[in-house]
């Protein structure tokens, strides 16, 4: 369902073809659902946000990055637990979503890791998170901040 691909040249091609209106190849069909995050203690610890990214279009889309005023270094990371029960976490790289498919960012797997928080994440507030795609398109969602002990989008 998720695989890496590198279509970095695509935005350039679109630019050179002289289109005046932004014509994104797929990302306008991306729907983000059930976004949520956990409150932080202060700003020293990284935060995490979760959501489902659905590709309702007919072209594959590749999620290449994140941006938010809340954190200077937002990045998609993946937690993994090996057969010995040891958990580790690493940047997930680019994520391609095939047409009609979705990618779940959920506890213990993929997550938006919010490093270098600019302010504490306070329960009850929201923050905007922008997902950037390889076709140059951007999708911004408002992410509600739930309690530290929240287990899902319903708290």
């Amino acid at each position, binding site marked *: 369902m998720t695989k890496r691909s590198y279509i970095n040249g695509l935005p350039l091609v679109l630019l050179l073809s002289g289109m005046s209106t932004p014509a994104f190849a797929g990302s306008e069909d991306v729907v983000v659902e059930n976004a949520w995050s956990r409150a932080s*203690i202060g700003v020293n610890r990284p935060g*995490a946000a979760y959501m489902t990214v659905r590709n309702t279009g007919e072209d594959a889309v590749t999620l290449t990055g994140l941006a938010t005023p809340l954190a200077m270094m937002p990045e998609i990371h993946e937690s993994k637990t090996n057969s010995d029960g*040891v958990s580790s976490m690493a940047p997930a790289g680019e994520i391609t979503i095939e047409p009609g498919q979705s990618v779940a960012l959920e506890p213990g797997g993929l997550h938006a890791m919010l*490093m270098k928080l600019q302010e504490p994440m306070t329960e009850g507030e929201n923050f905007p998170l922008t997902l950037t795609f390889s076709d140059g398109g951007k999708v911004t969602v408002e992410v509600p901040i739930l309690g530290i002990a929240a287990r899902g989008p319903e708290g």
Partner: protein
Amino acid sequence: MQRRQLLLYGAAGAGVLGLTLFVGWWRVDGPGAPEPKGQRPLPLSAMEFRLTDHEENEVGPGNLIGRPTMVFFGFTYCPDVCPTTLSDISGWLEELGDEASEMNVVFITVDPERDTVEAMAEYVGYFHPVIRGWTGPEDQIARAAEGFRASYERVPTEGGDYTMNHTASVFLFDAKGELVTMIDYHEPREFAVPKIRRALTEDVEGAT
């Protein structure tokens, strides 16, 4: 003569081979085998370490004997796995209701550099009140992890910070301090809660 020499060499060769095989067996499967990694934790009574809980009490494995115990490792700068484990455990404890107060539930940090007693106190305060946070000097954390056969490793991150890889399983002991079972990270509640009940029942059996 030549044939005899050949036989001699042959015998010597067979002897060396035999010895090699024997040494190999001794080291790998025999009495000289190293303790396999990922093996069962020791009973709590066989562990030795001294830590401080989030209310500044001196604590060790001896404090856990007498009540069923749940122990897990983590660190408070962990954005995903640790809060998930802590909230899963809080959920299990809520489901157990009053029985939860008959248990020791201990979160041991693998990152004592950042997880001071104050940091642990603030962090565990957000989860189920039964959960205790233990920290202490690095060498004592290492001894604790060794007893539980847990592992952890400091990993630098690109921002100049670091994260910790660590065993995310939850260890369950009965009131006598014997391991009952382990709950793997992300095990569904339908499996986890009966396992905890088993640790609680073994307590009753042990008492009678």
